[in-house]
C-alpha cells in the first residue's frame, strides 16, 4: 500500500492510496479460505467444495467485498499512520478504470479536526442573575385568570345591554330570506365586545333589553371559514332572552376549586412556581451565554469548513421554512438572503463552540451513563406512535450516528453543568426586565456576531435539528422556552438590530412586558396566540 499526499491546505487533506493487485488477490484468497468450510453446493458435502470452484462461483461478490474492506482498512490505517482526526466522514472514491486484477487507486479527501489545547476551565467567572418572583406580578396573573373565568349575573329587566355584558339570545339567520345551515341557535350566550361573532353583530345588539326582538343585518367577511357564506349579506332575527352583567370574581378558595385546585394558596403557589421556572430558564440561558462567550473569547482556531457548511445548511433550511410561513414570504427571504454572511458566522461559531465543549468534556471525563442514554431514548421515542417506538429504539441501537445525535445535546449540557460547577459564580438579584435586558445587551454588544449569540444559546453548538428537540426535552426544560421563543424571534431580531439604538430600547421594553403577559395567560390555556406576538416583538 502506497500513500501519497496530494493536498494539505489548512484543515483539508487529500491522499492517494495505491493498493497493488497482488495484495487484493492475497486478500481474496484468504477470504475464499475463510468461507470455504461454509459453502454449500449440490454435489458436494458441505465444506468440501474445492477452493477454485468457490472462487469461480462467488468470485465477483468476494472481489467487491474485499475491495471495499481493503479501502476501509487502508483509510483507517491512513488515519492511524498520519495521526489524523477527521472532522467528518472522509470522502473516499475509487478511481475510474479499476478492474479486477489491476492496482486499485483510491482518492481520500477529508477535513481534520483542529488541534485544540484543552481549555482552561478553572477560574471562569460567571454571574448568575436571579429573579425573585414579584408578589404583585403573581397578583396580576391571578387577576387575569380570574377575569377569564368571569361569572355573569342576571341584570334588571330594564337594563340595556352594554359592552362587556352577556346576552342570552335566540337567533335565526337567513340569506335572501332563506335560512342557512348553522345560522340558528337558541339560548346562545354572547358577551358583547368579545368579538366571537361576525363583526358588526355584537355592535348592533348593544342597547337591547330583555325580551327585545331585533333584526341584525351583517355581511359575512370575505375570508369567512364557511365558503358558501363568505362575503354574503345575511339577516339574523334575534330574540333577547336575558341580559346579564359581569360580576367581579374574587380570588378565593371557591374560585380555586372551580379551577380544580384545593385552595387559593395552592393556586398562588402554582402560579409562583410557574413564574419561577420561567425565569430560571432565562437565568440559565444567560449564564450559558456568558460561559460560551468566555470560551469563545479565549479560543480562536480554524474550523473545518465541511462542518460549518453542514451547520449553515441547517440554519438556512430552518430560516427558509420560517420565511415561507411568514405572510410576506418573499420579503422575508430577501431579508434573510441579505444576511447570509451573518448566518455563516453563526454557523462557524456554533461549530467552534461545539468542538470546544466536546474537547472540555473529553478532557475532564464527562460521560453519559447508559441509564441517561436510555432515558433519553425513551423521551425521544415519545414523539412517535406507540407501534413505531420499538422500531425507533432499535434504529437508535443499530445506528451509532443516530445515537450520537441524540446524545450530543445531553452531553453538551453536562459539560456546561460541569463548567458551571467549576466556575466562580456570583449571585445577583435582578428584576426580570434587567435579566432580559442583560441577554439582549449581550446580543447587541457583539455587534456583528450578535446573532451568533442567539444561536449558541439555542443549541449551543453544532447540533442537529432533531437533536435539538431532544435537548430541550432532556434535562433542560427551562431552556426549551427561550429556545422556542427565539426561533421566530431570530428573524425579527435581525431587523431589530438594524434600527437605531434609541428605537430599540422601547421596543425591548414592550417585549419584556409582553412576555410577562404571555406566561400570565398560560394557566387559562390560551397562551398560544398570546405568545406569538410576544415572541415576535422580542
Amino acid at each position: 500500500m502506497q500513500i501519497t499526499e496530494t493536498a494539505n491546505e489548512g484543515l483539508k487533506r487529500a491522499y492517494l492510496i495505491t493498493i497493488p493487485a497482488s495484495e487484493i488477490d492475497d486478500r481474496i484468497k484468504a477470504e475464499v479460505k475463510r468461507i470455504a468450510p461454509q459453502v454449500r453446493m449440490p454435489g458436494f458435502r458441505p465444506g468440501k467444495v474445492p477452493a477454485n470452484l468457490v472462487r469461480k462461483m462467488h468470485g465477483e461478490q468476494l472481489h467487491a467485498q474485499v475491495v471495499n474492506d481493503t479501502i476501509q482498512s487502508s483509510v483507517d490505517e491512513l488515519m492511524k499512520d498520519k495521526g489524523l482526526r477527521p472532522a467528518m466522514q472522509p470522502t473516499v472514491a475509487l478511481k475510474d478504470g479499476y478492474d479486477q486484477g489491476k492496482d486499485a487507486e483510491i482518492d481520500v479527501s477529508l477535513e481534520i479536526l483542529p488541534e485544540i489545547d484543552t481549555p482552561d476551565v478553572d477560574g471562569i467567572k460567571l454571574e448568575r442573575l436571579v429573579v425573585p418572583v414579584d408578589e404583585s406580578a403573581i397578583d396580576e396573573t391571578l387577576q387575569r385568570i380570574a377575569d377569564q373565568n368571569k361569572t355573569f349575573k342576571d341584570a334588571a329587566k330594564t337594563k340595556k345591554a352594554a359592552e362587556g355584558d352577556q346576552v342570552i339570545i335566540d337567533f335565526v339567520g337567513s340569506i335572501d330570506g332563506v335560512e342557512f345551515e348553522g345560522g340558528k341557535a337558541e339560548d346562545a350566550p354572547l358577551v358583547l365586545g368579545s368579538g366571537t361573532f361576525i363583526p358588526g353583530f355584537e355592535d348592533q345588539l348593544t342597547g337591547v333589553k330583555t325580551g327585545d326582538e331585533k333584526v341584525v343585518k351583517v355581511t359575512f367577511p370575505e375570508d369567512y371559514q364557511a365558503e358558501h357564506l363568505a362575503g354574503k349579506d345575511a339577516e339574523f332575527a334575534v330574540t333577547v332572552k336575558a341580559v346579564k352583567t359581569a360580576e367581579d370574581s374574587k380570588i378565593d378558595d371557591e374560585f380555586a376549586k372551580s379551577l380544580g385546585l384545593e385552595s387559593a394558596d395552592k393556586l398562588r403557589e402554582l402560579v409562583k412556581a410557574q413564574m419561577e421556572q420561567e425565569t430560571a430558564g432565562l437565568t440559565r440561558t444567560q449564564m450559558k451565554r456568558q460561559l460560551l462567550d468566555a470560551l469563545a473569547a479565549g479560543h480562536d482556531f480554524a474550523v473545518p469548513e465541511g462542518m460549518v457548511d453542514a451547520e449553515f445548511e441547517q440554519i438556512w433550511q430552518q430560516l427558509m421554512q420560517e420565511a415561507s410561513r411568514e405572510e410576506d414570504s418573499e420579503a422575508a427571504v430577501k431579508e434573510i438572503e441579505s444576511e447570509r454572511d451573518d448566518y455563516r458566522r453563526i454557523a462557524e461559531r456554533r461549530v467552534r463552540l461545539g468542538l470546544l465543549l466536546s474537547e472540555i468534556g473529553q478532557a475532564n471525563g464527562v460521560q453519559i451513563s447508559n441509564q441517561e442514554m436510555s432515558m433519553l431514548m425513551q423521551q425521544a421515542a415519545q414523539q412517535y406512535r406507540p407501534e413505531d417506538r420499538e422500531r425507533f429504539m432499535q434504529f437508535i441501537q443499530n445506528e451509532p450516528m443516530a445515537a450520537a445525535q441524540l446524545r450530543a445535546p445531553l452531553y453538551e449540557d453536562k459539560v456546561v453543568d460541569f463548567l458551571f460547577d467549576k466556575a466562580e459564580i456570583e449571585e445577583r438579584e435582578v428584576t426580570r426586565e434587567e435579566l432580559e435586558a442583560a441577554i439582549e445587551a449581550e446580543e447587541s454588544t457583539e455587534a456583528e456576531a450578535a446573532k451568533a449569540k442567539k444561536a449558541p444559546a439555542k443549541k449551543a453548538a453544532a447540533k442537529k435539528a432533531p437533536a435539538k428537540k431532544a435537548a430541550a426535552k432532556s434535562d433542560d426544560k427551562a431552556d426549551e422556552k427561550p429556545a422556542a421563543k427565539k426561533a421566530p424571534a431570530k428573524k425579527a431580531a435581525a431587523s431589530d438590530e438594524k434600527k437605531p439604538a434609541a428605537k430599540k430600547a422601547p421596543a425591548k421594553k414592550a417585549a419584556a412586558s409582553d412576555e410577562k403577559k404571555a406566561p400570565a395567560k398560560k394557566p387559562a390555556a390560551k397562551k398560544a396566540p398570546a405568545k406569538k406576538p410576544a415572541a415576535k416583538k422580542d
Partner: protein
Amino acid sequence: MAKKQEIDARHYDVILAPHITEKATLASENNAVVFKVANDATKPQIRDAVEALFDVKVTGVNTIVTKGKVKRWRGKPYRRNDMKKAIVTLKDGDSIDVTSGI
C-alpha cells in the same frame, strides 16, 4: 458452414451438461471429465461430441446409467428419470473448464 452447424446441433443433443460433484473433481486428477449425456448416446457419439465441442482429444469414454429411484407420491409409486453419465478421459495436456458451460 450450414453442415457444420448441423453437426454441432447433433453434438449438443448428446452432451447435456457437465456433472459437477466431489467425485467428478477427483476424476479430474486423472485428466477425466464427467458429463451428463443423453440416455441413448453411445460411446463413439460421446467421443465425437466432446472432441468437436471442446476441441480436445479423447482417449477413452466410460458410461454409467444411473437408474431413477422409485418414489411415491400420494401413495402412488412413480419412477424418477434414468440418467447416463459419461466419464471422458482426455489426452494428456488437454483440459476442459467444466464450469464455464457451452
